[in-house]
């Protein structure tokens, strides 16, 4: 187990560099795609093996838990949930890409950057110290800037430039927060910082400055309103497999996950931080969906829905933090655990159905040459497999039983209502309804009706693309039906890692500050 944790980062990183080498060897240069698929598949297998074990702590370079320096990696319940999510979506995306990327030149660059991004995201969720978190955030971000610009068309470059500048500003704030917290505590290890912060004074101006800078930077990475301006440009401009990775896992790993980790496990989940999460989540949920309704560009519509759905996750986590901090009757009755479960479950579900939707939008775009909904139509008969994937994704995000989106939204709404926030619960239900309407529009214009000129000649996408869609569609259905076993193996340990807060982290690291 201990050796597997660094390998989660080292394997895709090594594969990324190997791809660059292979691409320049005559005769085997066509194998870059297979090489990338194998690397990601190995990561998914390792993530599933790690899932079976307990919490693992690795101190890279043999620095040991008592030293203040050194790179610490922590593989606890939450990290395992994120690892499975990231590598599952990455595998589907890269299999899809083997067929989709054929029309691009210099595909090896794509695969190398893709491996680099996967390695960095695995690193983000395994990072046990704050600076390491920042470094992996940056590696993932730089790879994603280059991938958004991959097509080198004017729109793509424009979107990538905007994304890169705003992403760098976000990273700058994260670094500022890390520097301030280090100045106050003299530590970078998350568990040690968390243990020392109460001695400094949790509501002192220094801690608030550091926490504010960290949260602003990470909220920008998560594209929460009002920090969302880059996302609707950047996500649709990327090639479809990258859109699926960005919306499916990058905003979660480097945004929502990092935010939750910092707020719950480092800052201790105080009620003012919980309020910030609730406000960010609630506003993003509403504004995101209202902006999505008017869109006619399929991928842009999906991108706005990502903002809205991430709002659900932050809202549920925020309410969970607030209830857990209140120590009243609600916390004892497990309402906090239910909120956090709802949030994490929705995070996983959103990763599956949003990547499914982005991949099916990619295969529609490739076969018809457009992604304007008004120019499509009648694709249900022309492209049965893609339409099947698109339908399952739309039913999931719209919250129709028995797909997974229904269960996670239901749990969030019930949990928020039980936590004594009926207004927020009603808001969440309203947003779910608007989401449903928005996806009825997609179905109506893209799949039903008579084919318009652009769609008339469309044929089914290649097998690799279809199989990625079918696998993700099956995951969407199964993770809804198999909610109870998933809760037991995946989400309950993840929620416990968050709700255990500072004390939990300390007890498992064996650190005596």
């Amino acid at each position, binding site marked *: 187990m201990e050796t597997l944790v660094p390998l989660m980062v080292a394997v895709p990183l090594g594969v990324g560099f190997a791809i660059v080498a292979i691409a320049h060897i005559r005769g085997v240069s066509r194998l870059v795609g297979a090489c990338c698929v194998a690397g990601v598949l190995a990561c998914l297998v390792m993530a599933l093996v790690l899932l079976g074990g307990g919490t693992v702590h690795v101190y890279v370079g043999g620095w040991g838990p008592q030293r203040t320096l050194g790179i610490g990696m922590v593989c606890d319940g939450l990290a395992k949930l994120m690892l499975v999510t990231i590598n599952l979506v990455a595998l589907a995306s890269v299999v899809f890409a083997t067929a989709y990327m054929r029309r691009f030149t210099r595909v090896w660059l794509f695969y190398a950057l893709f491996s680099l991004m996967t390695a960095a995201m695995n690193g983000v969720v395994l990072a046990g110290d704050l600076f390491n978190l920042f470094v992996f955030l940056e590696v993932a971000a730089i790879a994603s800037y*280059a991938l958004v*610009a991959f097509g080198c068309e004017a729109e793509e470059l424009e979107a990538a*430039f905007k994304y890169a500048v705003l992403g760098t*500003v976000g990273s*700058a704030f994260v670094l500022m927060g890390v520097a301030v917290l*280090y100045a106050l505590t*003299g530590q970078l290890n998350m568990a040690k910082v968390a243990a020392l912060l109460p001695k400094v004074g949790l509501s002192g101006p220094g801690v608030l400055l550091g926490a504010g800078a960290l949260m602003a930077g990470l909220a920008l990475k998560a594209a929460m309103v009002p920090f969302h301006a880059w996302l609707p440009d950047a996500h649709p401009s990327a090639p479809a497999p990258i859109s699926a990775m960005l919306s499916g896992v990058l905003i979660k790993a480097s945004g929502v996950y990092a935010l939750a980790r910092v707020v719950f496990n480092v800052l201790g989940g105080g009620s003012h931080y919980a309020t910030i999460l609730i406000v960010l989540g609630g506003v993003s949920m509403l504004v995101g969906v209202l902006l999505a309704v008017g869109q006619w560009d399929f991928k842009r519509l999906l991108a706005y829905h990502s903002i809205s759905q991430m709002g659900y996750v932050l809202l549920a986590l925020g309410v969970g933090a607030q209830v857990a901090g209140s120590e009243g009757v609600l916390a004892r009755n497990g309402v906090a655990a239910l909120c956090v479960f709802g949030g994490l479950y929705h995070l996983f579900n959103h990763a599956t159905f949003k990547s499914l939707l982005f991949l099916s939008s990619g295969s529609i775009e490739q076969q018809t040459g457009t992604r304007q909904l008004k120019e499509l139509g009648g694709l249900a008969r022309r492209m049965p497999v893609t339409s099947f994937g698109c339908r399952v994704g739309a039913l999931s995000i719209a919250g129709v039983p028995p797909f997974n989106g229904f269960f996670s939204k239901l749990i969030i709404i019930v949990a928020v209502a039980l936590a004594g926030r009926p207004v927020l619960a009603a808001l969440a239900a309203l947003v779910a309804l608007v989401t449903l309407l928005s996806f009825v529009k997609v179905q109506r214009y893209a799949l039903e009706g008579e084919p318009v000129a652009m769609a008339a000649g469309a044929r089914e996408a290649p097998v690799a693309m279809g199989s990625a869609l079918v696998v993700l569609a099956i995951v969407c259905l199964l993770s809804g039906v198999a909610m109870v076993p998933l809760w037991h193996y995946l989400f309950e340990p993840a929620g416990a890692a968050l709700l255990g807060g500072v004390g939990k982290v300390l007890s498992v690291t064996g650190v005596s500050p």
Partner: protein
Amino acid sequence: MGIAIYVLAFAVLLVGLYAVIAKKNLIKVILGVAILDYALNLLLVLVGYRTGGTAPILSRGESPAALAATAVDPLPQALVLTSIVIGLGITALLVAMALRLHEKYGTFDVEAMRKLRG
């Protein structure tokens, strides 16, 4: 010294942010990003600084405890090195994208780039 130098770091940070937000020229935006990076590197070095401190190098015969009592904190300096490398990578990528955009539009002016709505 004291608090004033931190205020200076913060002022540099604000200059960088101003350039990123207000400037319409891609090159000036990139310069803003670079200034933002420098401000944070300055802040990180200041975090480890100690007035009159010595270089954190353990010379022969000196005890580690004696060094720790007089030397500046070396950890932020290691962090700054990492941060400078990351900053270099981002600046290079931004310049490459700005040059490609210049090929497409023939200008660095943001106002001329109107392919994307808001």
